[in-house]
């Protein structure tokens, strides 16, 4: 079966000037996204997790060409859409964009403060024109209801809404053009804890209803476990482990995944401490260690880990990890 979305060998490197007396004028390379590949089927959610700077947001933005990638293929129903997104044929570009939409982390910054909610939702309808103009008002009202807002409040401005309500608007705006894939970049991180579960429930219900696929970016592994069918763990621009969510959370094979999961304090006092303690901090993406980029922090590192960069290999029926000495 041709997957709905397949990302193959996605790469985004940044050239940056080095600082300091001796190296001034030379440039270094930040490998923000390095050979990232994954597959997403309709109705599934891929959780993209990792610490800040691991490349998860750059990956999502490159998929939509919001950040132009250096290399790789973005296959939508088996067809590479990266040249179309980067190309000059606006009609073709819009046709692809309509199918892949983005929800931003901060709904306040991603809504125009001078537009009413109705205007914000009219914009994607105007740009993509999936329907006749006379149907727009009805569509906007239906969208607001879908995300749990009163259609009569559509005449209000973003500042009149709470964070949770604004994120509902952000979701409605992404859904306005009936996309097949929605990229959700930390959609609940800026919300109060008692409101987060409302938005997570909404996202789950919308997926069940519409069959839309999600790429869910988050550093909050608990919400990833809730919303995702699959999970990809990123470290320094690479996917180090990927597969079915329950298998990876129950038995992480990459030592970074294990450390990441065990670093989350579980809300049960006196829970058995089975934590994998990590030494040091994430190295700069500019000075990626040789061999396995995780080896300087890994307790299970072997001599080979210093020399040879491991590739993703099957670890179970539904998981892959890039590790010479898996757990």
């Amino acid at each position: 079966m041709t997957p709905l979305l397949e990302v193959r060998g996605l790469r985004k490197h940044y050239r940056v000037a080095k600082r300091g007396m001796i190296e001034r004028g030379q440039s270094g390379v930040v490998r923000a996204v390095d050979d990232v590949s994954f597959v997403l089927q309709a109705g599934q959610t891929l959780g993209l997790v990792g610490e800040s700077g691991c490349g998860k947001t750059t990956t999502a933005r490159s998929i939509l060409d919001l950040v132009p990638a250096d290399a790789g293929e973005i296959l939508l129903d088996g067809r590479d859409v990266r040249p179309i997104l980067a190309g000059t044929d606006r009609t073709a570009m819009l046709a692809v964009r309509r199918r892949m939409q983005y929800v931003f982390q901060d709904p306040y910054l991603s809504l125009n403060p001078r537009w009413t909610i109705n205007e914000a939702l009219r914009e994607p309808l105007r740009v993509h024109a999936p329907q006749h103009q006379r149907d727009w008002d009805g569509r906007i009202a239906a969208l607001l209801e879908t995300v749990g807002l009163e259609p009569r409040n559509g005449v209000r401005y973003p500042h009149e809404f709470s964070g949770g309500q604004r994120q509902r608007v952000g979701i409605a705006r992404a859904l306005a053009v009936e996309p097949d894939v929605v990229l959700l970049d930390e959609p609940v991180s800026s919300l109060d804890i008692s409101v987060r579960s409302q938005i997570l429930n909404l996202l789950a219900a919308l997926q069940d209803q519409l069959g839309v696929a999600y790429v869910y970016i988050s550093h909050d592994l608990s919400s990833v476990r809730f919303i995702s069918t699959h999970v990809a763990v990123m470290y320094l621009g690479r996917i180090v482990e990927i597969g079915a969510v329950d298998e990876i959370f129950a038995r992480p094979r990459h030592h970074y995944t294990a450390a990441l999961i065990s670093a989350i304090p579980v809300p049960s006092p006196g829970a058995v401490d089975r934590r994998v303690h990590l030494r040091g901090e994430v190295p700069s993406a500019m000075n990626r260690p040789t061999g396995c980029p995780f080896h300087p922090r890994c307790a299970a590192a072997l001599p080979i880990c210093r020399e040879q960069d491991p590739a993703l290999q099957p670890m179970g029926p539904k998981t892959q990890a890039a590790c010479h000495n898996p757990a």
Partner: protein
Amino acid sequence: MAGQLAPLLAVEGLKVHFHTRDGVVRAVDGVDFQVAPGQTLGIVGESGSGKTVSSLALLRLAPPPARIVAGRVLFEGEDLLRQSDKRLAQIRGRRMAMIFQNPATSLNPILSIGQQLTEILRWHTGVSRQAALDRAAELLALVGISDPAARLRQYPHELSGGMKQRVGIARALLCEPALLLADEPTTALDVTIQAQILDLLAELRQRLAMSMVLVTHDMGVVARMADRITVMYAGRVCETADAATIFNAPQHPYTRALLQSMPRIDHSYSGARRVLPSIAGRPPDLLHAPPGCRFHDRCPEAAPECRRVMPREHLLAPGHSVSCLRRGSPGEDAP
């Protein structure tokens, strides 16, 4: 174990109001809690619950327009709210010290690490510059910073976020305070660094026999760190108990709902219908705080009286207090 010890810190009836152009925001509206020697109290709540303002008010650090309008903060036998500014300056950083949420903004960018650490030490103890530098280096080593002598000459921008927070912790511990206030000390950090900092705080608390007030919105963090937990909502305390009771037998409807609404990393959600029990609505606007119980409009158990009468904290069992009319709390006397 709590309760028998005389508290190191006792906060009674604390009220901190913000006098704004639009009216009075009752950010902290009658809050009580205690911390025994050697104990860690976790104060949990959402943004706007008053947890940060409460902790800042202990040292009278809540910035204007915040005004402490009532209450007592009894610490080592003194009411800090009634001491002179001079006396308070002697206590801050020496007997009660603070770690801030964002290490990037709580360190002075134009002073070296050494200057920032020695200034505090010399101000409080009047030791020589060299003695202060030695002590600062000792503290940096204690918080797990390698090559402390070299770090003392560095500036904050040369350090990573995790390192800066370690410096923030070292700074707070310079004078061996009896009580450490930590306001979201790991929220700005990545999870693996958060785990390192929490390990460090747990170890230091043991080693130095310190008390700690840990303010956070993260239930996981308090489960790991706190002996006792105070749950705040909209400027009021809902429930206080030892950590195990809060998690295993919570009584206040808000505590229960909050715990249930969080997805759990140790649960599988595949197969089942993915629905989290969620709390409808959102926290109230404290400019127009609802009458009665602050939680009543979101509470699954609210009775008509909850809309009118504000519940007062009462003891449900030894060491376990709750503010809820449905759990037998008496009503608050009219102000």
